[in-house]
């Protein structure tokens, strides 16, 4: 086939041989399983307070210690993964849908449409994302949907840029020309031929974007604009731990470590995907 994408089986094989990618994938999987099974896995309730158990260091009873209200840090960290992953996933899907749609149309059609769309993307790229998110979430309330929506609002532009450049290079290829010659309309060529071949790039972006959105969500939680107490999120657990830093290091340390491991996992997995599915990189490294 002319200008075809690499076959998925060989890509999968390369991914499985990519040690860091596999490691990242495992970390991600562990976090997703932990979040899904939170009610079963968490040894204690995330909200039950016990003043007698305040600020206990890690021990056999409380593996990661207890916080200022005597709540189990491990259980809260396990429950916290839900908020981060839910918002991360929701925001990423939104951002991908918008970014892919807008980017592919811009790259495929080119001309004035391309210029207009990419200038609009420039506006979003030039406003410090956190400022915009902060304003919207603070004024409209920190619900799951609001937070995910606004994170998507500031992350679609880079996705659009990447998808655009991929479509720009794909549209001149022989198989796209052939599809046109056979009488296929724009929508069909874009959907069936261009986007399918841009898929590897989009998949890689998904993984990297998930890491990014989780980081943004945790930052918002840290500023007090994430999940509201007593529901734990990794970001608000780190804030709680900040005031006990001198006497109880574990409260801020472990939830932060969870964010770090999850984001690192998504980044490693994304790198693995890129190395395995990007034909240019593959031929360079082999």
């Amino acid at each position: 086939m002319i200008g075809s994408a690499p076959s998925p089986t060989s890509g999968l094989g390369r991914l499985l041989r990519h040690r860091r990618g596999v490691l990242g994938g495992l970390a991600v999987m562990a976090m997703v399983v932990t979040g899904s099974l939170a009610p079963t896995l968490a040894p204690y309730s995330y909200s039950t307070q016990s003043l007698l158990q305040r600020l206990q260091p890690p021990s056999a009873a409380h593996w990661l210690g207890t916080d200022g209200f005597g709540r189990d840090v491990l259980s809260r960290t396990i429950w916290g993964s839900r908020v981060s992953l839910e918002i991360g996933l929701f925001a990423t899907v939104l951002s991908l849908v918008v970014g892919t749609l807008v980017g592919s149309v811009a790259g495929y059609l080119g001309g004035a449409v391309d210029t207009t769309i990419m200038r609009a993307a420039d506006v979003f790229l030039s406003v410090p994302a956190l400022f915009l998110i902060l304003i919207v979430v603070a004024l409209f309330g920190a619900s799951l949907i609001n937070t995910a929506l606004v994170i998507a609002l500031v992350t679609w532009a880079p996705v659009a840029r990447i998808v655009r450049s991929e479509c720009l290079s794909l549209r001149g290829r022989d198989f796209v020309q052939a599809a046109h010659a056979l009488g296929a309309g724009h929508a069909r060529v874009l959907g069936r031929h261009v986007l399918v071949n841009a898929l590897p790039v989009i998949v890689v972006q998904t993984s990297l974007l998930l890491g990014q959105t989780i980081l943004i969500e945790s930052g918002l939680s840290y500023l007090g604009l994430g999940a509201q107490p007593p529901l734990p999120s990794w970001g608000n657990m780190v804030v709680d731990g900040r005031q006990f830093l001198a006497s109880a290091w574990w409260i801020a340390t472990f939830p932060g470590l969870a964010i770090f491991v999850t984001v690192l996992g998504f980044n490693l997995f994304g790198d693995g995907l890129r190395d395995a599915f990007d034909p240019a990189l593959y031929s360079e490294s082999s």
Partner: protein
Amino acid sequence: MSARGLIAYALKRLGFAVLMLVGVTIILFAIMRVAPGGPEAVLVGGEFSPETAARVRQRLGLDRPLVAQYAGWAGAALRGDLGRSFKTNDPVATLIVDRLGPTLQLTAGALLFAIAVAVPLGVLAAVRRGSVWDTVGSAVSLFGVSFPSFWLGIMLILLFSEGWHLLPPSGLSEYGREGDVTSRVRHAVLPTLTLGLIQMASFMRFTRSSLLEVLGQDYIRTARAKGLGSPRVIWRHALRNALIPVVTVVGLSLPTLVGGAVLTETVFAWPGIGRLAVGAVFERDYPVIMGVNVMVAAVVIVANLLTDLAYCVIDPRISYS
């Protein structure tokens, strides 16, 4: 590019930058006025009657039509008047100027630190590809993009302030020693490190890949074939060309740098623009929110413009005409 071409391009971009800035102010204005609730709840506090709310809104000028409000704000802003804080009644411009210094110090310090570490490390990683340096470099860049900055800051406080008592955990300086340079430098170390470490990752990744690309070019092979030594080829021929795209990445990183400053300033109780913005958002202090954001957006837009212009001055092959 000829000087005339450059000026024409600069003017075109400047026009676009002004349009973008106007766009940003309209979007911000719309977002704030569409949001439910208003500043009266924060200003009056507790229970209050609809009449009180209406009186407060009238005093703040919020009862006027939206377009009139925006026109009033924009007209005053053009004359350099950004209005007064709803909460303290201080001029917004004064509030911003007071906090600009600490934020500039923090962001410039972080940027310099990031470049100073990332560029040499990126060069080493590219030149000694596959060596220990390459591994260290990729670990640094991977960790850098995976750390939540606020947590990194707290961990640094845990180690250097709470653990080893080497550096102060927060503030700009000790109380009453604001003019003491040593005290200010000691206070600046941890926040600068926090913000810089996060920024370092992309710079280092970019330096490495850009240099690797250049090292594969024909003219480098020619230089080597002429018998030039490795250091000379790398410094004279490769690095100069490889650093051009790095300049762009540094310019494009400004929005993340400023965004990162919001969190870093919050963690270290650093009295800068970021904390001003966070406070204003929670208190619905519209004039302060507008002022800070317009100022930040203007800085970012101008910096991007300068980066683009620097790009065509550094690289004569680029033509935007």
